[in-house]
């Protein structure tokens, strides 16, 4: 029995630059939502509830990346208010798709989208939450896998340490019984570099993994990329595969920059 049963844990969900997809994953737990809501106190979750309970919070889920000066401050305050801080999704764990700005000219991006860039306050970089504050657990994915999220919440409620997979997508692919499209058909698949969690969906739908769960533990990116290049696959088609939802994860950032000779902004550049 949970030692926390007497007083419900306070759960908070905060959002930074993101698409809301990861926090939506919680609302997408249709079968479990009301049970979860019975076990924890939803203290702060703007997308789902108008009740706002002040911190401190026992479990804080953070979605999104840091892209504005204001958000640089806000995350510090959230950290102070949180016992356990869990980042959810590629935006929060590696800067997300918006980290593509780290390779570009931020001023030019602003001008391309806004007639009056001076009205907009944003940083030249998009960075992961862990680049700013200490983070207890990271849930990967764009979006996260909701079963993984439930597992983590369950473990914390039971007072145990959540376990997250440390193996790659290839293992899930084998478990699913998918024929390897990289071996059988020469499709460049980044499954070998990618942390498990998605259930190896892409190969099961006849396409290569585009690594939305970010780098696997001890992934050997250089060797896989060398292998694909020796098969005649050009850097031109490999770079966009590496440089998307987790573009700023160190492993992908380095290898993709090696391929095109362009290096991104440092992690906390403004």
């Amino acid at each position: 029995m949970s030692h926390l049963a007497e007083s419900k844990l306070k759960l908070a969900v905060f959002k930074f630059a993101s698409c809301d997809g990861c926090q939506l994953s919680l609302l997408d737990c249709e079968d479990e939502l009301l049970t979860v809501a019975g076990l924890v106190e939803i203290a702060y979750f703007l997308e789902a509830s108008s009740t706002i309970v002040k911190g401190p919070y026992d479990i804080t889920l953070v979605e999104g990346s840091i892209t504005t000066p204001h958000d640089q401050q806000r995350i510090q305050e959230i950290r102070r208010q949180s016992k356990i801080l869990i980042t959810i999704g590629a935006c929060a764990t590696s800067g997300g798709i918006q980290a593509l700005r780290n390779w570009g000219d931020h001023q030019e991006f602003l001008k391309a989208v806004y007639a009056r860039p001076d009205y907009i306050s944003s940083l030249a970089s998009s960075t992961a939450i862990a680049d700013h504050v200490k983070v207890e657990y990271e849930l990967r994915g764009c979006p996260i896998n909701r079963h993984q999220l439930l597992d983590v919440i369950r473990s914390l409620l039971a007072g145990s340490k959540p376990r997250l997979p440390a193996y790659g997508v290839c293992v899930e692919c084998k478990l699913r019984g998918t024929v390897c499209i990289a071996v059988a058909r020469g499709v460049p698949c980044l499954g070998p570099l990618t942390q498990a969690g998605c259930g190896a969906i892409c190969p099961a739908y006849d396409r290569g993994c585009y690594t939305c769960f970010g780098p696997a533990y001890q992934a050997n990116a250089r060797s896989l990329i060398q292998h694909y290049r020796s098969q005649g696959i050009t850097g031109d088609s490999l770079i966009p595969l590496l440089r998307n939802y987790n573009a700023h994860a160190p492993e992908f950032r380095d290898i993709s920059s090696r391929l095109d000779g362009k290096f991104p902004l440092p992690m906390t550049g403004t």
Partner: protein
Amino acid sequence: MTPSRTIQVNALTRVEGEGGLHIRLKGNVIEDLQLAIYEPPRFFEAFLRGRPLNEVPDVVARICGICPIAYQMTAVHAMENALSITVPHEIRQLRRLLYCGEWIESHVLHVHLLHAPDYFGCTSGIQLAERFPQEVTRGLRLKKHGNELLEILGGRAIHPINVAVGGFYRVPRREELARLIPDFQWGLEAAVAATRWVAAFPIPEMSRPYDMVALVHPDEYPMNEGNICSTTGLNLPFDEYENVFEEEQVQHSTALHSVYKQTRACYHVGPLARVNLNFDMLSPMAQQVAAEVGFTVPCNNPFQSIIARCLEVVHAYEEALDILQNYRPFAPARQNAAYQKAEGCAATEAPRGLIYHRYQVDEQGKVTFAKIVPPTSQNQRQMEDDLREYLPRLIHLADAQVASECERLIRCYDPCISCSTHFLKLTVDRG
């Protein structure tokens, strides 16, 4: 001297994304009203440049986790228009099925978890479930059907991976889709019951002189294509969108506002607009339940948009069932075309309303230009306009109540703020 009064909603709740509302009153006169979307900009249009066109559906999905299909499909149609790809009937049907999945998932979420709580003084769907356990549980089950359909056809519900320019990466096996049929049969009945439940809510009276804009198609309820039509008589091919509408930037919002180019007037997009312009194209069951609950068009009450949303869910179930029952796998899963320097645009119907994309691509199939107009930025000016009309009714109330009433009105639009910057903090200044 009349004192100033400021009412501020710092963060709008039960909406997707982040925004606020600032109102400044001098006595009973509204001096200033700003719907401020402060969602940080993410620059999609800028960084799409240089990327391969076949990746665009994956990237634009990330604009919004609630309606990724609308982004994916609008991009796909625009690319296909650029490359002169015509897809066969089978692909078109599967795509409509995908829209049905997204409409069900998104509308049911909004109706049950985000909007219905307003009618009963509840702060969340979870709290509402204590009062209406059966109704909310039914809603969750409906929502799950939408998501399951997306999972099978799209690979997953949020940011599906199976949508491709020209078609799909893989078409489903017959049994994969067929196993949804019993759930969808149950769901159709349940969606009708949900509509009856919602129609009996204490819905406020209000009528606005809306100019409603939606796609209209001669043979079907609009999802993926049609002419751009309005309740004031506009009827244009979709590729003339930019001749008529334009986006402008305002200081108080990171989302651009769309207006009519000539008159600078605002307009209304979304389920209420679609139902008003396409009532006769709704499925038989949706029309029947509309008649039963006394919903008629023209309907200019924003608070009735929740009924329009429910009718669309009934429609989506009926259409989805038809496609599921008649589905036979086919090959090839997608049409290919040679890359060429080209430009293409498309407009489709996201759950929240009209969405427009335009792209230019080069000979290597790389994007050289992207323009994306999401539904919420089109509705933003209209929401401000509605609030101006609604506020005088509220002015006698305490600030906190003014704020929550304003939020309720805004919620009728199911605004998706992540999309529009790609919602809501309320400040009321009483002067």
